[in-house]
């Protein structure tokens, strides 16, 4: 089955119809999307402030990484699931939106980076306890994740 037909089927399904026509469903789901984003970005900010040695230097990197990594993942899952349900009732509108397409390119890049290169570097740094300031890695992580956030905001404004 082609992707096009899959979306058409989902679009026509009664469940998605309820979602689309309810006055409150999408705004409330958007509220949870924002909660997920706040959770995810707070984890990103905390870890990167520490790597940049701009803040939270009184707590060991190992402790910070262990604690905030899990809530970052929880935030990502909440944002992704709620985001999918915002997308579902109106896929054609989003598919035609340049900002959405940019977001869907930057988001997988951010996930890939964060859970491979970045994660390994944080683990190595936490084990070594060199206390050195890291620059490229945290800045790239901040740019990618806040890039996803700004692209998301642009969906409504720039199209």
């Amino acid at each position, binding site marked *: 089955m082609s992707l096009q037909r899959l979306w058409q089927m989902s679009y026509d399904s009664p469940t998605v119809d309820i979602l689309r026509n309810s006055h409150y469903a999408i*705004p*409330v789901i*958007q*509220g*949870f*999307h*924002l*909660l997920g*984003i*706040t*959770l*995810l*970005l*707070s*984890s*990103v*900010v*905390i870890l990167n*402030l520490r790597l940049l040695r701009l*803040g*939270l*230097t*009184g*707590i060991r990197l190992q*402790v910070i990484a262990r*604690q*905030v990594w899990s*809530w970052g993942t929880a935030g990502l899952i909440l944002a992704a699931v709620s985001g999918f349900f915002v997308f579902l009732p109106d896929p054609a509108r989003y598919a035609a939106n340049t900002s959405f397409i940019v977001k869907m390119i930057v988001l997988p890049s951010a996930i890939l980076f964060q859970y491979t290169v970045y994660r390994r570097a944080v683990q190595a740094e936490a084990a070594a306890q060199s206390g050195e300031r890291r620059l490229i890695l945290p800045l790239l992580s901040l740019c990618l994740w*806040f890039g996803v*956030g*700004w692209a998301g*905001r*642009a969906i*409504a*404004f*720039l199209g």
Partner: protein
Amino acid sequence: MLPLFHWIQNTSWATSFRQADLLFPLVEGSHILALSLSVGLILMLDLRLLGIAFRTEPVSRIMSQVMPWALPGFAIVFLTGLLLFLAQAEKVYTNSYFRVKVLTLILLGLNAVFYQYRYYPHMGEWDKAETAPAGPRVVAIVSLLLWMAVIVCGRLTAYEL
């Protein structure tokens, strides 16, 4: 209040800011994304009080580490929020989600002041305990729940404009 907000919303700067193609979305985006710095860092403190995260660190250390970034974070969120409000003062003022949000923010302020006066002076007694006593734990739970409500209400406010 309504005539005042009506006047503010119709001043020339409010009108041009509201209709700005780029500035308005930038301010709104900053308002949302700075939540990670403000509410996100307060989350660290709340979870520490509850004994869910950072149990090996004294509460006082988490507080002193978090505040230098959380306070500027709150300043950004508040100032951008004020601009967003002034640009659409009349419409926002009559928005019921916004009213719930402001009420919730006032409760959050009182909650923080209550912690500061009632529990902060005695923090030395349980600073290193893995879980704070019941009182501060209730403050932390109230903070977590109310911040969640503020964020959801904020999103709903924008939908009704």
